[in-house]
């Protein structure tokens, strides 16, 4: 136990400042609180993500897992990957959609309660990438599901994925605000 505590004390807090909101399109400050508040404002709670590998090479999964390491500290921002689609606000898909996974992907999407967001992560999820379209793959996620936001890269780096998720959430905020003002008018 002593060794563990010593190691923890030596490591300290390794968490880095989240990406500048300027890079995702608005704002000036980069405070964690700001991002957290924004997520709460949009969704009224923490952002929960169900990830589905629809046929990737597993490169994108490595980077999504990296997003959970202490440097990015995703949960500290109120963003969490969840096991059940019923608990999710956002569906994050990687890989060219293989025909063998199409049904499972559709069912996962259907199980997520409205309102839901779909984000395609990586070149393959955007347009099939190097695997293209064939007897085995449908190509990009948009062939099957309404995609709200895409994050390019092969694979995209964790920081790019984080920026992409925040952009998708902001996009939803924008449409919600537009819908609200239309409703009031």
């Amino acid at each position, binding site marked *: 136990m002593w060794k563990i505590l010593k190691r923890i004390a030596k490591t300290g807090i390794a968490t880095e400042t989240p990406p500048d909101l300027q890079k995702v399109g608005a704002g000036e400050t980069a405070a964690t609180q700001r991002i957290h508040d924004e997520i709460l404002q949009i969704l009224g709670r923490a952002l929960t993500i169900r990830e589905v590998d629809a046929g990737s090479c597993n490169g994108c*999964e490595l980077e999504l897992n990296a997003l959970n390491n202490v440097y990015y500290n995703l949960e500290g921002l109120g963003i969490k990957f969840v096991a059940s689609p019923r608990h999710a606000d956002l569906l994050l898909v990687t890989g060219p959609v293989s025909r063998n996974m199409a049904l499972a992907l559709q069912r996962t999407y259907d199980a997520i309660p409205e309102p839901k967001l779909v984000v395609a992560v990586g070149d393959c999820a955007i347009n099939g990438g190097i695997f293209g379209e064939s007897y085995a793959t449908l190509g990009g996620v948009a062939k099957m599901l309404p995609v709200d936001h895409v994050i390019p890269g092969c694979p995209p780096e964790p920081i790019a994925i984080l920026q992409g998720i925040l952009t998708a959430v902001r996009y939803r905020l924008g449409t919600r605000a537009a819908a609200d003002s239309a409703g009031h008018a």
Partner: protein
Amino acid sequence: MKIADLNLNLAPLPAPFPLVRGEVCASEWSAVALTIAENHGRLVTLWGSDDRHGEAGHFVVSAVYAVENGTLLWLDLPLPDQQLNYPDIAGIFPYASHMQRAVADLLGLVAEGASDTRPWLNHGAWPMDYFPLRREFTGTEVRDWPAVTDYPFVSVAGDGVHEIAVGPVHAGIIEPGHFRFAVVGEKTLRLEERLGYTHKGIDKRFEHLPASEGYRLAGRVSGDSTVAYAWAYCMALEAVWNWQVPARALWLRALMLERERVANHLGDLGALGNDAAFGFGLSQFMRLKEDWLRLNKTLFGHRFMMDRIVPGGVAFDPDTAACAKITAQCDAIEAEVRELHAIYDDHAGLQDRFLTTGRVTTELANQLGLTGLAARASGVPRDVRIDFPAPPYDELAVNIACRNSGDVAARVAVRFDELLESLQLLRQIVRRLPDGAVIAAPDNGMPEGRGAGWVEGWRGGIFVALTVEKENRIRRCHCHDPSWQNWPVLEYAAIGNIVPDFPLINKSFNLSYSGHDR
């Protein structure tokens, strides 16, 4: 009987390790397999090709064996008269079963006498009479595709026996696959895997790429092994084209291969701690892995070093400062890993979960053809870097990491040992890195021919068999992942263990879905 007594007509194939090839007829096909099995040889991979050219040519089934004297034996069985079956060898090498089922799905060639002929990669999402690797199909035909069909799992009946179905979508951020457990209470009686969910038609896709570009696709067969795959592919292509790669480039390839091994072992050691409810391990190791990947990005321009191994060499050239950074990082990480190793070893709760869990005995490992890291943890000392040392491994003395207990603890221990060994190798590589060019131009044109690549990835041996036509075209590229051998062994490793230990056992193998499904 010895291989030499079989009277096979064998000719050497170009490769940086001993490789011979020959053609056999159907009766020799099984006889050779039996002789190899009796002489402690093993099947490396099995695949099929369509070598028909109009009226001429044949379907061909190929197998590669590692035989007793440190040689790879590539056997082709051309099927005469448009025949669609060949003798089963899964009765001799049980792990051939999935490979034979894949050949049936992709080419319609059936292993005669095989006990299991269920479709493997074809889940019914494309027609059962559509064989994508046949020449008459482009692989991109658009049709009204059928729906995915049910799969006849082997069912277990009895008092209190019930089934647990898991996947293809798992709880975490991992690749898709299906596990069907038959359990009594919490105890696993039987586990059956169903894979193929990430089948992307890679084999067919290769046919649409120039041979000189195929390394990019090979590097994406399994993203966590991109260096090993790209190297194996380039090794095969360079052998066919008689392309002399500069020594510096070969050393830099080994540098990247060892860095890939370290990155994955760091990740696995963290995840294994986490699966035994030791979150501290995950946080610490993931931090080290992130540091490691960030230096990859700085030095090679890519966190996983994708597309950095190219035909003829490598696509970067580190200077002295870069080399110093690598050495410094090896020293820093080694100190931390040793500290964490001591913590893991001393942690009673962790050891309680690791010890005796998911055991694979040496006997079972040999019988089922277990390979790579998992085999070494079960007392089977095999490592391509030692057994088939292509340059620069012929000059690097690699110490093999081996354990006999075959449980999760052994697979953890092998990872620790290999990690430290790779750090030692990295320092050695940086110190002895030869000067000169990092890429050579091809000087012999682009002749047709066959070649093979064989590289010890972090998970095990990765084999690439490549047939190139004239004008830079790929006729057939078969990429083999060690997961083909190891997935079936996981089914045995789970037997008798409680279901909650399965994630731990599964993680200790950490097999590739994408590399298997292709």
